[in-house]
């Protein structure tokens, strides 16, 4: 790990090493991509059985990437010492940074650029200045529609409901269950069962809950649990998430599903945090005559405040981007659209990429405070 001090290099050497580093970072993913791509053309055109194709694909994809690191490492290790120490880190870190740039960093700028244009995005084959002066350039008018179109406003309202109810209930239930489980005689089993839905896909969860909400006309036997309970209590059966009469409250029938799924997550985190409270603290307050409720509010909650905040933010970000549940359950009908379903509808169903991109940028802006918070946390860690 002995790096030659930067000052000792000649300017030419530094430029050369910089170019080499960039090249390495770009070349490895490009070669990897090319090799994988060729393999794919072969797989796509072959008529082998599905199982064979699947296993070849797995070996190809995983082995190919590993092999490339090995080859490039060997190439760089043949270089003279000084060059090797300059280049080797970029063999290691380069591919990751290149992929991150292609898939997340650069798309942020590109999506913003697309959002300034009409439905087909910036016209192809023009340079930036020509694009700006072309008729496809619409400025901020996509953003204006994002904040004025009625379906979008509905989506914002629903997303707000998702964030408020979804995060509150998952956090409160998670905390409650964590505290109860801690004192119960079957902690492990209880935590496993509550945590279990977290492993289920939203599509799977949608089927599970659709079955609970299943509606049959009043004179037939109900096969959905909820309607069956409602009928036995003398009510009329409803198709719950589609029940427009109570809009926007029919969103709650979708939000329940995510609470069911996410509570396990917050429970696990809270449970670990509660176990970190020193026993002496709890004992001392009990001896001082504090009731269990006082202990909960005066000792536990302040002690795990950090965990509560981070769990809350996580669930908020999660519900902000909620998509699968709504898309599979209602497709956004019956007044249940959210931002992400609107994004999908505009970008891919309506093929209005300008509008869709503007929605994506709004989503990004919404998470920027969390991003800054993370960066601030990172700066405070002196270790790096």
């Amino acid at each position, binding site marked *: 790990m002995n790096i030659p001090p930067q000052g000792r290099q000649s300017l030419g050497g530094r430029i050369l090493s910089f170019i080499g580093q960039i090249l390495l970072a770009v070349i490895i993913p490009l070669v990897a991509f090319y090799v994988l791509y060729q393999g794919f053309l072969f797989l796509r055109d072959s008529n082998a059985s599905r199982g064979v194709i699947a296993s070849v694909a797995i070996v190809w994809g*995983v082995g190919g990437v590993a092999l490339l690191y090995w080859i490039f*490492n060997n190439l760089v290790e043949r270089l003279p010492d000084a060059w090797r120490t300059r280049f080797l880190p970029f063999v290691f870190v380069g591919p990751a940074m290149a992929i991150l740039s292609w898939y997340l960093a650069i798309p942020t700028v590109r*999506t913003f650029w697309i959002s300034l244009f009409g439905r087909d995005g910036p016209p192809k084959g023009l340079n930036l200045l020509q694009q700006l002066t072309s008729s496809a350039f619409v400025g901020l008018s996509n953003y204006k529609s994002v904040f004025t179109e009625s379906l979008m406003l509905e989506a914002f309202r629903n997303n707000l409901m998702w964030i408020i109810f979804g995060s509150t209930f998952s956090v409160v239930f998670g905390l409650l269950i964590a505290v109860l489980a801690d004192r119960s005689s079957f902690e492990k089993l209880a935590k496993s069962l509550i945590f279990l839905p977290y492993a289920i896909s939203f599509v799977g969860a949608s089927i599970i809950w659709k079955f609970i909400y299943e509606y049959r006309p009043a004179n037939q036997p109900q*096969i*959905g649990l909820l309607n069956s309970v409602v009928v036995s209590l003398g009510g009329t059966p409803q198709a719950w998430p589609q029940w427009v009469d109570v809009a926007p409250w029919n969103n709650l029938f979708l939000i329940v599903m995510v609470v069911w799924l996410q509570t396990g997550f917050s429970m696990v985190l809270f449970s670990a945090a509660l176990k970190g409270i020193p026993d002496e603290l709890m004992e001392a307050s009990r001896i001082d005559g504090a009731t269990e409720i006082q202990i909960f509010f005066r000792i536990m909650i302040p002690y795990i405040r950090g965990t509560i905040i981070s769990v809350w933010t996580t669930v908020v970000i999660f519900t902000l981007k909620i998509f699968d549940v709504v898309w599979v359950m209602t497709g956004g009908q019956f007044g249940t659209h959210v931002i992400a379903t609107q994004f999908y509808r505009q970008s891919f169903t309506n093929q209005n990429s300008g509008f869709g991109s503007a929605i*994506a940028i709004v989503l990004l802006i919404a998470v920027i405070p969390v991003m800054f918070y993370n960066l601030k946390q990172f700066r405070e860690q002196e270790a790096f």
Partner: protein
Amino acid sequence: MAAKKRQKNLGKLVVNGTLFLIILIWTIPTLGVLISSFRIRDDIATSGWWRVLPYRDWQAVKEIDPKQAGLDPNGVMQVEGVSGTFEEFRAGVSTPDGKQITWIGNKRIGKIEVQEQVWTVDWNFTLDNYKQVLGGQDFKFTKPDGTIQIIPGDNMSGAFLNSLAVSIPATVIPILIAAFAAYAFAWMKFPGRRAMFIVVIALLVVPLQIALVPILRDYKALHLNGTFLAIWLAHTGFGLALAIYLLYNYISGLPRDILESAFIDGASHFTVFTRLVLPLSVPALASFAIFQFLWVWNDYLVALIFLGGNPEFELVTQRMAAIVGSRGSEWHLLTAGAFVSMLLPLLVFFSMQRFFVRGLLAGSVKG
């Protein structure tokens, strides 16, 4: 003292009771679908799954042939001490001793049943739903009126294989790439190290929606849309920031002297990485692998966009969503299919719960 003990016991009872109730509520949704997936198609469609629990139902204890008993369905009839018209008997007339008398069938060729309420369960279980949803084979049913109805099956096993072919590389590739990067961030010094790591942290919470439109354009230009490669790379790109961050936290915490003595012995970075760091980091790699695997397996949006055009490569989630859309009332397919799609995640969940929890505590939550 005794009073205090009694109070403590009562408290324990309340805690256990409340928790039991919550667990029950949390489990019932999954349980209902699991039980239904083994019930016969017609049973699912006509009665609730809770019929597998004991319930009271009317069961015939005696049959009467109306013609032999000399009853005239067009007038008021006397049966077993109660009287009523045909319509009343069709709906069921109850006798003073708690029985019910019901006319089954039409006026010409009907029969009268004397029914008693008994405890019963519906325990007709079958594997047909699974065969149908996995095998893709059509099932023929002969309806009561003699017509034959053909119910097309559904080929989930193909989708299952596709999901595997997507999930395994989409789990291993990002881990490999991230482990190399995490090692470099932790144990190498190079210009731009801090700046690059700040980029990684900033990208942790960026919603993937931001990338879908531009990446789809790239894929279309490269004719990559609808291939496995497209979706592997997409999942790699979207999971990489978190993977680097988590693995960095672990790898940078490895004991310094072990690595340094290896360097003094003349080991290269590559050797140290493959021989020392990777084996030592297995717990962290496993935690992230579980999360990435579950995330990819359960993903719907990314698959919908990058594999959407190609029915050959449909994944389990897409297949299920398609069944919900086109055959949403065929609960025998939906319930069995839902369980097929959950099988692997639940297996991973139960067998590796320890790693799963550890990963969660380390911050395995996707932005």
